[in-house]
């Protein structure tokens, strides 16, 4: 049983499932560290995925796809920055409307630019090529999963380390954490708090653009309406579970990638796909419940795990 279940292909699917969620969750981690609650990850990813396909189709090269995906998602996150960091609007309301705006706008453009509804695919579009790392790809079971991914997958792992290090050890990271900890105190120390919030939101947009790129050109080359299918929300859950620490968030994302692949595998073994498709969402819920119960029955009660925007309470002092 274990032999037929955990194949090389299974672990490949785990890594493929993790990558877009991880990139979006990094964006969410940065946002939460700077004191903004970003639930528009879903919409930014969708915009990125659409822009990547538009770039690949009309521009014809991979570089066009990457540039357009990052630019479009960053521009879209500009709306979030404007709304919640500059005007100080409610980030939940802005997040919900941005997600719906992204869904509507991409379906609209799909129909008016490509003339199709539902799914657009074009066999001439360049996808992200898989690399072959010299020694790693020779590993027995994990060779394909760890050694033969596209560049974006490796970039996402690198970005986890970079963001963890940048937040922990650089002056910029200290300021970002300070703004999230106490906005007014940061201002009183002479930090441009609002500017940091805007920059971090835009950075998150770029990360979500990459997540969308991975989704639409990573393993298949197509765009379909609402193709993010809740991954942005799973990323929000991952940020919460990982308490906005990049490495813990990576662990949470791994859990979802794993359950996603298990669902796919069970489907291959005859379970109806309507049931197995909900595996990652149910796994997310179970993880949230377990984390919540652990908090609840702790002897010294911790503050609520709910990501509260301004007074950042759930993180301990650096």
């Amino acid at each position, binding site marked *: 049983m274990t032999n037929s279940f955990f194949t090389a292909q299974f672990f490949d699917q785990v890594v493929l499932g993790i990558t877009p969620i991880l990139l979006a969750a990094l964006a969410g981690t940065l946002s939460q560290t700077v004191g903004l609650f970003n639930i528009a990850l879903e919409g930014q990813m969708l915009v990125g995925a659409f822009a990547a396909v538009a770039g690949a189709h009309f521009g014809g090269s991979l570089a066009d796809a990457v540039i357009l995906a990052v630019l479009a998602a960053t521009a879209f996150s500009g709306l979030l920055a404007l709304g919640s960091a500059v005007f100080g*609007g*409610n980030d*939940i309301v802005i997040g*919900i409307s941005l997600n719906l*705006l992204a869904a509507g706008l991409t379906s609209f453009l799909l129909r008016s630019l490509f003339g199709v509804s539902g799914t657009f695919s074009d066999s001439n579009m360049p996808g992200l090529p898989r690399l072959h790392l010299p020694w790693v790809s020779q590993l027995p079971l994990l060779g394909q999963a760890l050694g033969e991914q596209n560049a974006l997958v490796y970039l996402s792992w690198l970005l986890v380390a970079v963001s963890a290090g940048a937040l922990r050890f650089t002056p910029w990271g200290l300021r970002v954490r300070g703004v999230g900890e106490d906005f007014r105190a940061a201002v009183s120390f002479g930090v441009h708090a609002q500017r940091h919030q805007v920059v971090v939101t835009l950075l998150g947009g770029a990360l979500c653009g990459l997540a969308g790129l991975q989704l639409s050109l990573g393993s298949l080359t197509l765009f379909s309406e609402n193709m993010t299918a809740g991954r942005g929300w799973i990323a929000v859950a991952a940020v*919460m579970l990982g308490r906005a620490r990049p490495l813990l968030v990576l662990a949470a994302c791994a859990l979802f990638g794993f359950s996603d692949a298990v669902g796919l595998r069970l489907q291959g073994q005859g379970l*109806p796909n309507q049931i197995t498709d909900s595996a990652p969402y149910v796994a997310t819920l179970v993880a949230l419940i377990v984390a*919540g119960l652990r908090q609840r029955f702790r002897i010294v009660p911790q503050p*609520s795990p709910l990501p509260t925007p301004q007074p950042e309470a759930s993180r301990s002092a650096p």
Partner: protein
Amino acid sequence: MSSASVAISMRLAPWLGPLRSMLRLGGSLLLGFAACAGIALCVGIDPRLMLSAWLKGAVEGPQVFETVARSMPLVGMAVAAAVPLRAGIVNLGADGQLVLGGCAAAIVALYLPVPAAVRLPMALVLGATAGGAYGMLAALGELYARVPLLLSTWLLTYPAKGLCGYLVRAPLRDPITAWPSSYRIEPAARLPQLLHGTPLNDGLIIIAVLAMLVVLLDRYTAVGYEIRMRGLNQRFALYGGVALGRQTLWLMAASGALAGLVGAIMVLGSQYRFTDGALTAPQYSWSGMLAALLAGGEPLGAVVAAILFAALQTGGFAMERSVEIPRVLTMVLESMVILFLAMRGATWRRLR
């Protein structure tokens, strides 16, 4: 300032707040339409043509009935979203509750071995119960395991949609249909038509009565006052003795029950069978959520906004036919209006 002008400004004072919010609302709507006109220009269509087709398509001739028929589910979902939103709680799981309600109603109406006249009310009640129980489940998750409602409601939609999708594919499947759906409900167990020759059914009356009830409860009862207080300031409500946990539970149950009832009415009154995706594809729950956000959770405002959105969506079909602009533009407009409104900030800061 003279005493006379003070008296005048005192008299005007209660009107200034609503006036300002009406102006802000109008401004957001105008901005939204302007942005849509801009989008139309970008894809090479005369925006004046688009706007006239859009607005005429909503109210011209028999289209009025279409608008009224469409406002039934929209008003229902808007009230379902507004009930918890009034207390600052966002229910993102209306889709799952809607689908479960519709599916439960179809099962009762098709398989319960009692006379059809009894099956109809039972199907409505059980549809609402299914949705309400599912909404309550999310609330229990927050109360006992501290899973934020914002996430749990959303995540719970997927298993609900998956379960119902599976049910109409395997055990309940009517083999003659092309798309996975249940058997057709017999005429005696359907909701009667309200006006012959129009798509209106008795569900419209049920939803109208319930919406009115919610408005009255909100304005004139202690329960409504407690909910509003919580929306304004949760700590104050707690200090005043409101049992927040129990209130969350009942608000989510009410919201889910309304969504489930809308699903049951759609199945029993116009679709006559439960078809996979037929309830969620028109995105009633999202438009309802946006309508509730537009009104800031105030139920009467949410109803008005929902009717406005229903008119815009009906007009969208006409627009798609005559000037070939995809009607998804309606969704773009709706979400942009909320976005512009939320960007203006201050009123919404409370929801945090």
